[in-house]
C-alpha cells in the first residue's frame, strides 16, 4: 500500500493517484491509432488492403489523366488525315535493326494494290527504318482550347506517318483517336451518374421519409421504369433528340438519358435505408427542433450511408459507358465529328471489318479495361464503405 493512500473510516483505502482509465487495459500504439481514427481513415485502411481495387483505382486515375492531356499524348491531331495511308495496319515498335540496337523505331510501309480485289496491301519494308523521337514537335493544337502548342510525346523523326494501332478509312491515326475518345467516354459516365445520384437521393429520400402514398407512387414509378427494357428506352429517348442539335447538346442529352433511367436502383437503396433510419431518436430530436424535411434528409440521414451510395454508384458507371457505346454504335448517340469509343466502334459495324481491317475494333480494348477497372474499384469501395465489417 502506497503512502498516498488515505485511510477512511470503516477501514477503506483510497488511492490518491489520479485515475487512469487505460491502466487496466493497456493499448498498444497500433490499437490506439485504430480507436482514435476517423471514419475516413478506417475506410482508407480497409480500402488499401484490397490490392486489386487500389491497382484499378490508380489505373483509372491514369486513364483520366490521359484524357486530360490527350493533345500531348496523342501522336496526331484528331482530324489529321492522310489519304496516302488508308486502312494502314498497325505497326510494331522494334528496338533492334539487323542485330544492332538503334532505339525505338518502326519499319516503313510498302504499299501495293491487289489488282484482283482492288485492296491496298501493306507490308513491312524491313529496309527502311523510321526512328521515333520523344517530346518532339508535331501537329499544332490549342491545349485545352487555350494554350497554343505543338509538343507531342512521340513522333516519327522523318516526315513519315506512324500508325501504331493502324489507320481508318480516311487515314486517321487510330491511337490518337482512341486517346481523344477517352474524353467523352470517360466523362459521360461520371456526369450521368451525378444526375442519377441526385435524382435517386431526392426521390428515394422523399419516398422513404414520408412513406404513405408518396412512397406508393414512387414505388410504382420505379417498378414501371424497371419493367421496361433499358435499351429500347434509351433508344426512344435518343430518338427524341432533334437531329440538328450541336454535338455538345447531344452529349448532354445522352448523359441525361443515361441518368434518367439509372436512378431507380439508387432510389430504392436510399428509400429502404431511410425507412429504417427515420424512426431513430436523433431524427425525432431534429424534427422537434423544427428542422425541415429537406434538412433532416440531407444533413442528418443521407450522410449516414453516403459512402455506401458512392460505392454502389461506382459500380453502375460501367453500365453508362456501355450504354453510350451501344447508342453511338447504333448511330443514335454521338456522331462524328465528336469522337468517343462508341463512335469509333461505329466504324466497325459490319463483318467485313472483322475480316479485312480487324484493328478497327481495337477501341473495344480500353472499353473493356475501364469497365473491369470500375468494377473492381467499386468492389473495393463497397467493402471499405463498411470498415467495421
Amino acid at each position, binding site marked *: 500500500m502506497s503512502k498516498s493512500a488515505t485511510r477512511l473510516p470503516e477501514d477503506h483505502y483510497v488511492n490518491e493517484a489520479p485515475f487512469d482509465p487505460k491502466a487496466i487495459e493497456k493499448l498498444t500504439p497500433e490499437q490506439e491509432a485504430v480507436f482514435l481514427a476517423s471514419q475516413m481513415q478506417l475506410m482508407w485502411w480497409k480500402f488499401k488492403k484490397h490490392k486489386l481495387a487500389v491497382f484499378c483505382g490508380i489505373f483509372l486515375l491514369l486513364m483520366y489523366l490521359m484524357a486530360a492531356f490527350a493533345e500531348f499524348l496523342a501522336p496526331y491531331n484528331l482530324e489529321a488525315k492522310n489519304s496516302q495511308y488508308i486502312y494502314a495496319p498497325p505497326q510494331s515498335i522494334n528496338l533492334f535493326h539487323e542485330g544492332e540496337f538503334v532505339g525505338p523505331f518502326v519499319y516503313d510501309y510498302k504499299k501495293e494494290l491487289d489488282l484482283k480485289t482492288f485492296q491496298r496491301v501493306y507490308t513491312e519494308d524491313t529496309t527502311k527504318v523510321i526512328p521515333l523521337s520523344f517530346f518532339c514537335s508535331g501537329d499544332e493544337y490549342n491545349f485545352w482550347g487555350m494554350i497554343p502548342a505543338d509538343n507531342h510525346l512521340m513522333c516519327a523523326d522523318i516526315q513519315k506517318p506512324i500508325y501504331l494501332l493502324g489507320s481508318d478509312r480516311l487515314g486517321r491515326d487510330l491511337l490518337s483517336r482512341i486517346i481523344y475518345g477517352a474524353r467523352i467516354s470517360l466523362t459521360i459516365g461520371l456526369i450521368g451518374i451525378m444526375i442519377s445520384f441526385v435524382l435517386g437521393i431526392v426521390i428515394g429520400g422523399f419516398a422513404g421519409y414520408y412513406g404513405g402514398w408518396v412512397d406508393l407512387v414512387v414505388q410504382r414509378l420505379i417498378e414501371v421504369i424497371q419493367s421496361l427494357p433499358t435499351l429500347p428506352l434509351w*433508344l426512344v429517348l435518343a*430518338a427524341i433528340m432533334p437531329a440538328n442539335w450541336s454535338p455538345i447538346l447531344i452529349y448532354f442529352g445522352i448523359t441525361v438519358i443515361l441518368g434518367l433511367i439509372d436512378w431507380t436502383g439508387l432510389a430504392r437503396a436510399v428509400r429502404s435505408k431511410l425507412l429504417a433510419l427515420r424512426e431513430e431518436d436523433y431524427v425525432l430530436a431534429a424534427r422537434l427542433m423544427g428542422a425541415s424535411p429537406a434538412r433532416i434528409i440531407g444533413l442528418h440521414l443521407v450522410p449516414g450511408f453516403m459512402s455506401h451510395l458512392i460505392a454502389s454508384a461506382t459500380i453502375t458507371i460501367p453500365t453508362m459507358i456501355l450504354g453510350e457505346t*451501344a447508342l453511338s454504335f447504333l448511330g443514335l448517340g454521338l456522331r462524328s465529328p465528336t469522337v468517343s469509343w462508341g463512335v469509333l466502334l461505329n466504324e466497325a459495324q459490319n*463483318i467485313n471489318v472483322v475480316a479485312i481491317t480487324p484493328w478497327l475494333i481495337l477501341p473495344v480494348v480500353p472499353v473493356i479495361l475501364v469497365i473491369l477497372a470500375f*468494377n473492381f474499384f467499386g468492389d473495393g469501395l463497397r467493402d471499405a464503405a463498411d470498415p467495421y465489417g
Partner: protein
Amino acid sequence: MLGYIAKRFTYMIPTLILTSMLVFFLIELPPGDYFESYVNELIAAGETIDPKQIEFLRTEYGFDRPVWERYWIWATGMLVGDFGYSFEYELPVREVIGDRLIFTIIVTFFTIIFTWLIAFPIGIYSATHQYSWGDYGLTFLGLLGLATPNFLLALIMMYLANQWFGTAIGGLMDPEFVDKPFSFAKFLSVMEHLWIPVIVIGTSGTAAMIRRVRANLLDELRKPYVTTARAKGVPEFKGLMKYPFRMSLNFFIADIGSVLPQVISGAEIVAIVLSLETTGPLLIQALQSQDMYLAGSFLMLLAFLTVIGVLISDIALGFLDPRIRLQGGVSR
C-alpha cells in the same frame, strides 16, 4: 394462397396503366408525326404530294384529336387485342409483330437457360472455394463477359462461326428456310444459328448471376446449421445441396422477373448486329420513322411480358416461402 395471388394481380393493374401512360408519353414526345417525316421523304425523293391527301390521312388516323383521346383509343384497343396500325408496313401492328415476338421469346428463353447453366456451377464452386485461384479466375471470366460490348462480341462470333462452321451470316436460319412452313430441317437450322445470340447475350448476364449465387450461398454457408451438419458427418456434397443451396435459391426466383427486361434489352442490339428476325431491328426502325403505334405497342408488349414474369416469380416465391405468402409481398 388464393388471396395472395389475387392481391398480386391487383398490383399489376396500376403498374400496367402507368406503363402505358409513360410509353404513350414517350412516343408522343418527338416533334412532328409520321406523316411529317413521310411528306419530307416524298419531297426529298422529288415527288409532289397533295396536302389535302395528307390532311385526309391525318383525320383518318385520328391525329386531329386531342392527345388524351388518342391515348384512350390506343389503350382500350390493346385490351381487346387491337394494337393499332403500322403506317410504314400498312398492316395492323399485331400482324407485323406476331412472328418476331415468338422469335424474341425463343431467344430469350434459351439465353436464360444458358445463363443458369453457366452461372450456377460457377457460383457454387466460387462460394465453396472462396478466395481461391479458381474463384478469382472464374469471377474474372464472368466480368470479362460483362465488360465486352455485346454488339462487338456478336460480330466476332458471327465471323468465327462463318469461318469455322460455314454458318450463313446473319439471321436466325439459313436463307432458304425463311417463309417456309415449319419443318425439322428448319428447326435444325434455327438451332445452328441460335447459339451465337444466346452466348453473346448470356455472357453479359452471367457475371451478375455468378456474383449473386456466390454471395447468397456464402451467407447460408456461414450459418451454424451447416457446421452442425458437418460435425454430424453429413457428406460434404449432400450438406451443401440439401439445405444451404436450396435456401439460397430464394433470391434467384425473386429475380426471374427482373432478368427478363435485361435479357430482352441485351437481345435488341445483338439482334440488330446479327440481323435476327426478332423485335429489336423493327423497334429501332419504327422509332426512327416515328411509326408510333408500332413502337408503342412493342414497348408495351415487352413491359407486359416483364410484369407477367414478376407475377410468376412472386407467385412461385409465395408457394416456396410461407413467410412471403403471409406477409403479402417480398421486399426487394
